[in-house]
């Protein structure tokens, strides 16, 4: 077993994801198989290899820098337009502090 249902619950908690009991069992089963396959990565020698986080190609160091010119922002109304609940120019969420 690569992963237990207990670990699946822990990871779901980290990911802020509510899963049903059935989903927990399914995810445990699927992740077990997938992680077992991924363990093959341990076979390949990567001594002295720099990790690659981004695609790299030849370009001047400043190639992606732009002039610092102010631009009009999106604006409050447009930014809030898709909010499930908004008011007084803010996103509204359930109470955070208990009284």
């Amino acid at each position: 077993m690569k992963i237990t249902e207990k670990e699946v619950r822990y990871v779901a908690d980290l990911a802020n994801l509510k899963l049903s009991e059935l989903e927990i069992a399914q995810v445990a089963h699927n992740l077990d198989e997938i992680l077992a396959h991924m363990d093959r990565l341990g076979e390949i020698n990567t001594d002295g290899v720099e990790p690659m986080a981004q695609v790299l190609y030849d370009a001047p160091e400043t190639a992606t820098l732009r002039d610092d010119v102010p631009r009009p922002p999106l604006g409050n109304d447009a930014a809030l337009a898709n909010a499930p609940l908004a008011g007084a120019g803010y996103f509204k969420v359930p109470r955070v502090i208990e009284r």
Partner: protein
Amino acid sequence: MNGHMTIGEIQAGLRSREFSAKELATKALSHAESVNEETNAYLLFSHARALEQAELVDLQIAEGKEPGPLAGVPVAVKDVILTKGVRTTCGSKILERFVPPYDATAVTRLESAGGVIIGKTNCDEFAMGSSNENSAFGPVRNPVALDRVPGGSSGGSAAVVAQGTACVSLGSDTGGSIRQPASFCGVVGVTPTYGRVSRYGLVAFASSLDHIGPFAHNVRDAATLLRVIAGHDALDSTSAAAPVPDYLAALDGNVRGVKLGVPKEYFKDATGETAGLVERAIEVLRLEGAEIHEISLPSTDYAVDTYYVLSTAEASSNLARYDGVRYTTRSPHSDTLSDMYRNTRGENFGAEVKRRIMLGTYVLSHGYYDAYYLKAQKVRALITRDFTDAFRSVDAILAPVSPFPAFKLGEKVNDPMQMYLSDIYTVTGSLAGIPCMSVPCGLTTDGLPVGLQILCNHFDESRMFRIADAFERIVK
């Protein structure tokens, strides 16, 4: 629109006043709507925006102005690419009602070139899938064989071009999501160099791997669309500053002396018919004067594992924003903020998206980061090195796109690992960030299309298009 008109035919028709852009857009919309039930390829038709844009093109023509290289061309856009004021769902219930406040740069550029966006295309939820069966709005059926998948995740964008309901379309590719559906539906699909097309307004799945690219009936149209959307954009810090060449100038039909590498690792798992059609395509290019060299890309076997570690890790972070605060959908059953996050996500993400968020969170979590995430980043460097080494001795690499042609709906849906393994020949190019494309190379005995994959070095799209176009001229 008349089934399979090319960009050139549309431009000629507009110039000779055979039809107006508005007539073409009206016809394209009514045709696309009337046949959409067959494939479910469109999620939305953007009538008002299309007609307004078509009228603008007609006005420019009437005033004697140059209306642009895509003037009047009906274009479909994958529903992970933002269109201002036009609903964009990412194939997800969580964004069912999301109306973007701005346009993606690729959308702005294609409209500036005269393109007419007629609708948004169905896709796997947040572009996660290889069959288009993960859409919250139902699967897309392959127009070539309606009981089969169109491929994924850009299945809708491939299907509309194959069906002739759009002239060209935009898709997105993270691990093969343009090339594989192009191959399954028998159209041309292009994944450009990473950074060649701005990702501004492309809803993020895995930021270090996401690309926008074109689908078309032929290589010339794909090259025309790429040239319009490519180029530096100050709104995407990973967008490349390199100038965009005139891709059409490269389409001279000449492959004499071009050195083509054939990696033996890419024929190991391919089914007999797929491998046979790709080998025949290679022979066709050899007879045209190309030099064929057998090469080896030794890290290929680890690419699927590497890709699924890195892409799910990035996705788990990128999808954290869908928490019920900003993006339209919120669970009604939550008294606390924390429950609201959990319930909103649990109730509205589909099974595959949940699986990938879980996998990505796991590989980034304490105790597993080095063994999975860091290790995969190192193997990604080795996969890239394989290509860098290969391009010292060859100009381009030829391979299958997928080990098999379009499979039946439902065939792989219960086996995620088998579904992931079907991406084996496309994730490599995505990880290295090199340009790669699929060009149709024949049909199986069941009449299913197979794609030839052409891979080139960073920013070498011109050469890739030259080879693809030369091949297309011979077989058409």
